[in-house]
């Protein structure tokens, strides 16, 4: 056994690496594998309101049913709260990130969600939150809701639409930027009990949620129904990840050790590789802080043999250890 070279930086005392074989952090085994992710198109918008309560109502509503592009067309989440000094109109705001497989879908989903969830929400306004590689419509088409009473105002090379509504005016920027991004970064956490895996994931989610440029699109940030690519049923493109289902332990395809009783996944979408690397690192650090003593056995990544996407996030590389 040798000391892990970055141990002093991280501050853990119980880190050991067996080259090419093992990476244990605080007793948690980091599997020598990679999490597979795929390219996406992303945008950021800023929703403001008379207070956080109403801005958050709009943000939460528009990011609802946006867990996976497979069934929802878009993955969306709240990035963070913005102070009055950070928003264009000087009110409390929420930054929202949306990810889709292509620009057209992203634009369609954005407009539908703004129209149904933000336009309708009392006191809110919506602004572009990204310069990006190109522009997609934000209020550009929504303005027709104004039935001819809408007016535009160009300020500092940005065009805003003012749509009369029953609480005054709905203010929205004409377009927002979009850029290439990455979806589907992930971590799989193995623990001796459901409560322990939940505790570990919650710690990881809390740590990752502090970071900019990423979202965890699934409920609360965690996924219990991790999927594999394909199914025995021809109509399904994805199905339950049965090798990781604890109730199927002992069957030939199942890979879980007998002491593992629950597995949880955390899915991460980010604007860049660096953002995902940092998020996964922070997540792994938070989980390993709990360590084997808290029942955490292993961390691995969703590796689909390259079938899912071209972005491969090697867990040991992220943690600064050796790669095999």
């Amino acid at each position, binding site marked *: 056994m040798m000391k892990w070279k970055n141990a002093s930086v991280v501050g853990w005392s119980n880190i050991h690496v067996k080259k090419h074989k093992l990476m244990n952090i605080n007793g948690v085994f980091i599997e020598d594998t990679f999490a597979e992710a795929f390219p996406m198109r992303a945008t950021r918008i800023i929703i403001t309101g008379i207070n956080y309560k109403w801005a958050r109502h709009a943000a939460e509503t528009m990011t609802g049913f946006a867990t996976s592009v497979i069934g929802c067309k878009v993955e969306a989440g709240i990035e963070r709260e913005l102070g009055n000094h950070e928003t264009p*109109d000087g*009110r409390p705001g929420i930054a929202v990130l949306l990810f889709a497989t292509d620009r057209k879908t992203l634009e369609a989903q954005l407009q539908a969600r703004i129209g149904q969830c933000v336009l309708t929400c009392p006191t809110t306004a919506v602004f572009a939150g990204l310069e990006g590689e190109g522009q997609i419509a934000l209020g550009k088409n929504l303005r027709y809701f104004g039935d001819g009473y809408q007016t535009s*105002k160009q*300020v500092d090379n940005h065009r805003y639409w003012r749509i009369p509504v029953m609480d*005054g005016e709905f203010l929205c920027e004409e377009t927002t930027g979009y850029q290439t991004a990455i979806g589907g970064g992930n971590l799989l956490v193995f623990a001796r009990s459901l409560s322990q895996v939940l505790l570990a994931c919650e710690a990881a989610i809390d740590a990752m949620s502090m970071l900019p440029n990423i979202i965890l699109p699934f409920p609360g940030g965690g996924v219990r129904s991790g999927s594999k690519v394909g199914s025995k049923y021809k109509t399904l493109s994805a199905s339950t990840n049965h090798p990781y289902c604890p109730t199927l332990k002992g069957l030939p395809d199942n890979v879980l050790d007998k002491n593992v009783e629950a597995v949880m996944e955390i899915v991460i979408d980010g604007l860049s590789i660096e953002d995902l690397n940092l998020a996964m690192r922070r997540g792994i650090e938070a989980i390993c802080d709990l360590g084997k003593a808290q029942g955490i056995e292993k961390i691995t990544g969703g590796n689909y043999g390259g079938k899912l996407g071209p972005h491969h996030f090697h867990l040991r590389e992220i943690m600064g250890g050796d790669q095999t």
Partner: protein
Amino acid sequence: MSATTIEYKGSGDHRVNMRWLQQALEQDLSPKEISKSTLNLGSEQTLLGDIFSITGKLSASEITLKNSTPSLDYVGIGLPSGRTLSVEGDCGHYLGQQLAGGRLICTGSALHYAGCNMQAGSIEIMSNAGDYVGGSIAGNRRGMAGGRLLIHGDSGDFTGDLMRRGLLMVAGNIGDHCGNRMIAGTITSMGSVGENAGNSMRRGTLLFPSKPASIATGFSDCGRHSLGFLPLLMRDIRAPESAFQTLHPMRRRVQRYLGDASVDGQGELLIWIG
């Protein structure tokens, strides 16, 4: 690159057409070539070198026009982006007409049609301006179409006539018929406004601290409101150093009038309250 100076040496008895400067900039003429050019002065012709002395190259990004008088018309016409023209003294008519992105500063006053048909860039007049500021020359269907026009003093009648886009700021008072036939854009003032404001206004915003002496008859009183776009607009309004910087950046409470119904318009006249 060093600054270039153009000094007016004339008596000011005749009107001088300054379009030659636009042509000289486009053709990058040397001071020697310019001096040999002729200029109509009343019914006579004269050499430019006889009434202007030029030091430095016109390719310089900053040009200063010294000893300017109200007899100099079309100063800074079509000034392109990347160029700054500082005018020391007063200017005649059509200051900064069709400004195309450049920066024009006049330390004195300007006569009529300052900034008319300007497209982009900024004009700053340290004193007063005449009629049809940010308007349109006769026959054109659109006035000022972009950029910022800031007058630290007063402006005359028909301010913003046929204005299409941009920001027109008057720190002092505005004359009659402000926003006449306005198509879009914003006109704001820190002082009083004369009769018949917003006449035949189609779109756009008039933003004043108090109600004008009279408003065009086709305006409806829409009541008092807090408008979310005003803090955004305030950033633009408060950007240059001027009396407007005393306004609170988050101010958004206004009395709103909508019109002019006589032309089926939806322009707005906003009066600060609270």
